[in-house]
């Protein structure tokens, strides 16, 4: 939970997972609190967009927007643990920092709705994916960086086989079947954490890119 302390800065207190609502805005870096405090004074409802506009005025702040309204209390109750995304991603520009550690449906929807082909979706903070998330992300022709993903299952490997563009995975081990799927990827495929590859796997990878 984020609260304002006496110095008008944000501090966090622990929230139990079951009380967390994924549909909020969340800050990791300290925003321009004086403007925000002014804006949310009273109990009037404010929109995520209004907050985002304020946040954009501060270069280092990061924010996640779901397009939903929140009250002052809701704003104060924001958990500061997971849903972080850089404003560069939201505005469709390249981002070089992977700050997102959890993917909720609204976030994924927003990420995939961009028409910017040069977009880099940098999700290096993620250490796990659902099969559905892997499938959705793989459908977009983007540079997709998932260096925090250390293991994938067969279904996810199959999804990634269809991804076009750049794909960076942090996997350190994979089965022959998974490598076979990944080898069907026709874009840039980075698997630099794989240290031991057997002959069968290298044979599969030799066909990557249509070779």
């Amino acid at each position, binding site marked *: 939970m984020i609260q304002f302390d006496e110095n008008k800065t944000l501090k966090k207190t622990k929230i139990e997972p079951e009380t967390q609502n994924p549909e909020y805005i969340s800050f990791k870096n300290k925003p321009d609190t004086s403007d925000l405090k002014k804006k949310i004074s009273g109990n009037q409802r404010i929109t995520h967009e209004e907050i985002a506009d304020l946040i954009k005025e501060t270069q280092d702040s990061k924010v996640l927007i779901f397009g939903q309204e929140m009250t002052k209390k809701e704003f104060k109750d924001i958990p500061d643990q997971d849903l972080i995304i850089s404003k560069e991603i939201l505005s469709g520009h390249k981002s070089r920092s992977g700050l997102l550690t959890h993917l909720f449906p609204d976030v994924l929807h927003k990420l995939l709705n961009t028409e910017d082909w040069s977009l880099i979706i940098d999700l290096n903070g993620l250490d796990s994916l659902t099969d559905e998330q892997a499938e959705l992300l793989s459908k977009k022709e983007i540079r997709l960086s998932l260096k925090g993903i250390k293991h994938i299952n067969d279904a996810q490997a199959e999804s990634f086989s269809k991804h076009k*563009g750049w794909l960076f995975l942090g996997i350190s081990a994979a089965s022959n079947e998974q490598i076979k799927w990944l080898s069907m990827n*026709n*874009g*840039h*495929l*980075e*698997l*630099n*954490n*794989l*240290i031991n*590859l057997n*002959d069968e796997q*290298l*044979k599969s*990878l*030799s*066909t*990557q*890119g*249509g*070779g």
Partner: protein
Amino acid sequence: MAKAFSGHLSKLYLDGITSLSVTQAEWLSKHDYGLSLNGIKSITNEALQKLLGSDGDEYETREPIFINGLTSCSDEQAEAISKCQRDVFINGVTSITDKQAEILSHHKEILTLGGLTSLTDKQIY
């Protein structure tokens, strides 16, 4: 055409691999597109020949190969590189002999040796 286009966009990064057997090198030599193997610090002459497709097999010009982890180069390896029909990046090599420079000069594609710390007049010419 479609293949050529996709090839331009394709590259395989396996920088975690630190060694390659001859068989493995032979498999990877069949990868037609960009290939990054910067984790390899040393490789046998035969494996490098296989990897670069310079062992007599006929290959068309292909996408670049990056072996920037290599820190030295034998005469046999210089021969293998000179016959390779793809751009070769070996920026980890810090020195070469005059003989190796002469051999490498026969390479017809792009060759980068950005790690060289000195060159003799003979190597330049």
